[in-house]
């Protein structure tokens, strides 16, 4: 019964924790320019993420290893250095984008400033990490994040044509702006399949002392939680397609994106958008900071746990403080948060095989997961989506990053 309750809570928190700066911005941009045409990319990315999350939980439950631990042990430090370094760089960029997202949300509510909010946001994140245990951070932010369901409610109020929605689930190439279309596919994949989620999820499972009896609840949480979470992300795209595309409003800034909820919620539209963005980004910033600290500590063999008092694991605490400060400094340089988000999301896809393929080897290795090795479907879906994203990224990311406006 307790496991069922935990699974239910896990599903709810997965839904609330799904939306963050990447999913809001990439889905909003995609919907505003291409209507429903990129719904399939959200669906494919969500399916891939559900499989990967289930694998991370299964690895932790059976082997008692986090992803970072297991990769380092299985492949050796020399190999592990490469994904380790890539993850540190990518996570720091994404963390800066999340901090930027919270600052934008505060600006939308307050009506002024951006850089001025960076230090208070970093201080708030640090205070929450310092004072709260893992469960409170993970579940608290995600439960508050249920405000993002306002996008789903907006879809019901705006009543899109079901036929148009279903046709968006079939991959197709548009007649215009194909490089931009492919870039959005890559960005959606990068925003949804965040490598940090895997180690964070596995670290949480180890912290919660999962065993093999958690395999079924883990499967339920991964399938339903990520499935419904993906539905929220798809709702952002649908609302942008209904509200912004017909007017010709492309999302070059979060202020333009914020207009999407106005037809559904009138004067509550902008505040609901800002709350969704702010809470989603703050939750993701806390998870990213913790994951960076987990990755560094697990990679270097330090004590690590969000359940221990900071003085018992000073280096772990110092690690999340340092990455928060570094990401805050990055935002203080005046970089455009939306641009930073798109860059970090697309770079994530370029490096994705580096994280995913060693991980897949572990999930097919009986020394780690005993009889619970991956089936052909899980391997097939993950490989197909990651390879497709990687190839597209190689083709369009340099074009968009160097030539895009």
């Amino acid at each position, binding site marked *: 019964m307790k496991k069922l309750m935990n699974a239910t809570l896990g599903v709810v928190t997965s839904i609330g924790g799904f939306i963050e700066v990447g999913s809001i911005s990439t889905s909003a941009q995609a919907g505003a320019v291409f209507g429903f045409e990129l719904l399939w990319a959200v669906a494919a990315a969500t399916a891939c993420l559900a499989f990967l999350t289930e694998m991370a939980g299964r690895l932790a439950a059976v082997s008692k290893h986090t992803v970072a631990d297991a990769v380092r042990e299985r492949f050796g430090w020399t190999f592990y250095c490469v994904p380790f370094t890539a993850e540190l760089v990518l996570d720091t960029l994404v963390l800066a984008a999340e901090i930027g997202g919270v600052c934008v949300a505060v*600006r*939308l509510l*307050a*009506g*002024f400033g951006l850089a001025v909010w960076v230090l208070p946001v970093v201080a708030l994140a640090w205070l929450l990490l310092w004072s709260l245990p893992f469960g409170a951070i993970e579940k608290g932010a995600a439960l508050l994040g249920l405000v993002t369901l306002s996008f789903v409610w907006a879809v019901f109020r705006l009543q899109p044509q079901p036929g148009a929605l279903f046709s968006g689930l079939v991959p197709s190439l548009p007649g215009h702006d194909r490089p931009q279309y492919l870039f959005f596919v890559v960005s959606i994949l990068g925003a949804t399949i965040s490598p940090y989620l895997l180690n964070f999820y596995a670290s949480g499972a180890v912290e919660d002392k999962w065993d093999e009896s958690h395999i079924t609840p883990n499967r339920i949480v991964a399938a339903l939680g990520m499935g419904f979470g993906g539905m929220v992300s798809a709702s952002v795209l649908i609302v942008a397609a209904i509200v912004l*595309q*017909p*007017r*010709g*409003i*492309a999302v*070059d*800034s*979060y*202020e*333009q994106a*914020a*207009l999407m909820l*106005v037809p559904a919620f*009138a*004067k509550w*539209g*902008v505040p609901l958008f800002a709350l969704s963005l702010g809470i989603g980004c703050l939750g993701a910033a806390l998870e990213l900071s913790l994951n960076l600290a987990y990755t560094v500590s697990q990679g270097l063999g330090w004590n690590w746990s969000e359940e221990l008092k900071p003085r018992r694991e000073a280096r772990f605490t110092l690690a999340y403080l340092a990455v928060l400060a570094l990401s805050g400094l990055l935002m203080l340089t005046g970089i455009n948060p939306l641009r930073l988000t798109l860059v970090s999301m697309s770079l994530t896809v370029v490096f994705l095989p580096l994280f995913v393929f060693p991980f897949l080897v572990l999930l097919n290795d009986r020394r780690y997961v005993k009889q619970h090795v991956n089936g052909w479907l899980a391997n097939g879906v993950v490989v197909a989506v990651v390879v497709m994203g990687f190839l597209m990224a190689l083709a369009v990311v*340099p*074009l968009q990053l*160097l*030539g*895009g*406006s």
Partner: protein
Amino acid sequence: MYKGRLPALPAILILAALTAGCGVESMLDDARKGRLSALATAQATTEAWARGQVSPKFARLAFSAARTRVEKDRARLARRDEVAADDRVRSMLAELERVSARLAQLATAAEHSDVSTAAALARDTPPPPEP
């Protein structure tokens, strides 16, 4: 192929990446899209503000954000002399300047919470053609 020579495919990809988006057509296309989006944003924001659905503070932010994009395109087009000499570019630069000035007026109206002036300015601005 001897050692040290750059293989053809990567060389082509690097060249394509470095030159992508630098052509006049591509820059004009970006500027056209940016202009349309900025005008549409201004119109949607003004309408929502007039209906009391967004605050003047938000309206000012939205006008300023739209203007930032227009200014960015303008600076990008004006940066290179050989591009700026093109008649189409000169005409686009003038149009972007006009849109930027209108967005600045709208932001000022929002700063003074003057919705009637903003509505008049938005009415006076030709609507963007169908996207």
